[in-house]
């Protein structure tokens, strides 16, 4: 009866609880601060969930390669998430549990309740990936919800550049509910690039998290293109001292598209640094929400955190909400944020047109420069 027989006990319990919550919880609504500005009506949840996600029909109840990566491992490992959970590979439990603990809405619990689909990447101690790692989510939108989790674990001192592209092969209107969960152990370094090439009618919900141990460094770059509905959460948890996270993102949104970005810089340990820089260009009737938060726990002395959001509005009719927040619970900190919203500088525009560019060209040049 129980199709999760071969899975570790912690996973079965966590999944069971997530499934229960996913069933019982109502859809998020405006009463939740994180969803107050999100127009979920755009999603037409009714029809998206008419087709129930496929019930688990597992081919394997044991990992394909039974040897779990561990301290002896000398090479990078790429597995299906299914195998990684079955084999209880390093970091899987920690990342699952952190995501579960952060769960505050039905979507995240669905993400955890569904059978594990996605990839698991493991870099052993001091392993330095020389080439850019490229990971593509080839989502098969069936008109319903797709659920994907990618887990990335870098052991102490490992280094990698990872490019993740979210794409799809066909284009029925689908909701892609996904997360990339990353664990950077002591002194590990990751440069992470995320792009997406989904069809414009799609909807994307992303609940990515990065956990940084002592001295780990993260550089995250995120480029958002136009989607009917796009809500992306990026959380960096600086768990141990002297870790450093740098979150960057650009978005260029037109039409009547909706784009919402949530960033969280959570400082739990002394002397960590974090930066967030998000820039967006809005055209037509686009609507964007940027919601950033720096949280500093009482223990996190010597925190250095900064958060910036700049929006460029190309015409009337678009709307940019910018909500950079701070929650600081200790005094030995340097925390600040800045936000600007404005239009293309008329003087710069004049200068470029006086040099022979057409108005349209000049605007394009200035917009690109803004996003650089």
């Amino acid at each position, binding site marked *: 009866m129980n199709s999760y027989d071969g899975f570790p006990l912690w996973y079965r319990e966590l999944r069971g609880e997530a499934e229960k919550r996913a069933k019982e919880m109502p859809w998020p609504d405006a*009463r939740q*601060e994180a969803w107050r500005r999100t127009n979920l009506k755009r999603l037409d949840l009714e029809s998206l969930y008419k087709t129930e996600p496929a019930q688990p029909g597992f081919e394997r109840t044991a990992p394909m390669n039974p040897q779990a990566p561990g301290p002896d491992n000398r090479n990078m490992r790429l597995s299906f998430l299914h195998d990684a959970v079955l084999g209880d590979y390093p970091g899987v439990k920690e990342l699952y549990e952190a995501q579960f603990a952060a769960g505050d809405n039905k979507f995240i619990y669905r993400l955890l309740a569904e059978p594990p689909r996605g990839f698991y990447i493991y870099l052993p101690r001091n392993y330095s990936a020389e080439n850019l790692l490229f990971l593509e989510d080839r989502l098969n939108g069936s008109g319903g919800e797709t659920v994907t989790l990618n887990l990335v674990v870098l052991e102490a001192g490992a280094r990698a550049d990872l490019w993740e592209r979210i794409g799809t092969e066909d284009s029925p209107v689908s909701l892609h509910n996904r997360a990339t969960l990353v664990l950077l152990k002591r002194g590990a370094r990751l440069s992470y690039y995320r792009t997406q090439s989904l069809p414009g009618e799609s909807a994307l919900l992303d609940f990515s998290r990065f956990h940084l141990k002592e001295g780990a460094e993260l550089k995250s770059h995120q480029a958002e293109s136009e989607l009917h509905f796009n809500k992306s959460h990026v959380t960096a948890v600086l768990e141990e001292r002297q870790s450093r996270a740098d979150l960057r993102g650009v978005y260029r949104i037109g039409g009547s598209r909706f784009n919402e970005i949530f960033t969280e810089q959570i400082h739990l340990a002394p002397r960590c640094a974090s930066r967030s820089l998000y820039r967006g260009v809005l055209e037509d009737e686009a609507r964007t929400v940027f919601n950033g938060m720096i949280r500093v726990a*009482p223990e996190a*002395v010597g925190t250095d955190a900064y958060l910036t959001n700049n*929006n460029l*509005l*190309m*015409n*009337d*009719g*678009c*709307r*940019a*909400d*910018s*909500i*950079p*927040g*701070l*929650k*600081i*619970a*200790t*005094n*030995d*900190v*340097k*925390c*600040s*944020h*800045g*936000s*600007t*919203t*404005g*239009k293309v500088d008329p003087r710069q525009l004049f200068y470029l047109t006086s040099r022979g560019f057409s108005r349209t060209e000049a605007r394009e040049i200035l917009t690109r420069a803004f996003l650089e």
Partner: protein
Amino acid sequence: MSSPSTVLNKEEYQHGYHFPDQSIFKTRRGLDEEIIRAISGQKKEPEWMLDFRLKAYEAFRQKSMPNWGADLSRIDFDNIYYYAKPTEEQKRTWEDVPEDIKETFDRIGIPEAEKKFLAGVGAQYDSEVVYHNLKEELEKQGVVFCSPEEAVQNHPDLVRKYFGTVIPYRDNKFAALNSAVWSGGSFVYVPPGIRVDIPLQAYFRINSENFGQFERTLIIADEGSFVHYVEGCTAPVYTTDSLHSAVVEIIALEGARVRYSTIQNWSGDVYNLVTKRAFAYKNATVEWVDGNLGSKRTMKYPSVFLKEEGAHGEILSIAFAGQGQEQDTGGKVFHLADNTSSVITSKSISKDGGVSSYRGMIKVHPGRKNIRSRVVCDALLLDEKSVSNTYPYMEIASEDVTMEHEASVSKISDDQLFYLQSRGFTEEEAAAMIVNGFLDPLVKELPMEYAVELNRLIELQMEGSVG
């Protein structure tokens, strides 16, 4: 009289003295329609005002408590006196004011201030304005400065035209409560073209235990006029929770300028939940200067609606959160017209585990041209236990906008402390000086005696904070 055992921290709180309750008429605890009728009857109000109160009471019952901001779960609406009337009738001169009330005022220092600066004093002791003095030349100019009760009797046209238009009674739960049981406050009308050069002042005080104070202030500045209204609060110390829920409405008509300054120093058990809002019409300017010290929980976000072209709004906010206190303050500006501008400056200080939060909103409606707005929030944390939060909301739906926001959180810099100590100050003195310096941009905006008082209060709050 409350027994000595119910009085907390008397030494620490400089204005924490308390006189026997001599109120002449006082409603029972709790609130129902009967009490509202009694309040209205006591004030000999016309039917339309009673209707307004009853409708507001209905809205109060229907509205839910805010699900955000400070923790308000301890407020027990049934355990509050909603109305008390201290003396029989309005007094015109200082000599007629009852001795114990006068003594309280003496200690806060009203008479000196009055001699020097005041144009008129409406000092509120419990719910009624007990003392009123408006300089003769102002009266001749047609400036009205009186209690809202008097305004209802003597200027019904103005009251009916503007009362409850800026903050409708169903705006929020506490505005509805105030609209139902309001008592006391100020009414100011400045006729076209008149500049009131000296600030109009009113001191508000709470004196009955468990007694919510619901004053109502309405300021109308007619075309091209100017007025500076100053309100200050000090309250005696009590052990049980008191509720202060005021409503302040300001209307600045074409070309008018209104400046409203408050320093509130409620005792540490008061819930201070205030709705303040202003409408600024063509080329009008509204400035809020808002200082919040004391109180248990404060939720207060002075707002300006820039309704017509050329209007300008400015909000300066200071919050000082000490032990057990939560200051949830900020400001809101709504740009509803072209060529409007706004500035919000917020400075907050948290100490001994206090929580200070900035919560603000800048909203630009679609298609508005040439909008400028700037928001700056600085927070100072004096120890590792204290908390500072910032929640700035910016909703921009127009392209022709220059919107800037910055916020920073820091502690007192060791370099500055070291420098001042090397010049012979103790650490405590040095810290107090740095805090006063941090607040300087706001203090400068206050009338002189308020600036002095604020500096004194900060020094008092800072005592024993270092070392």
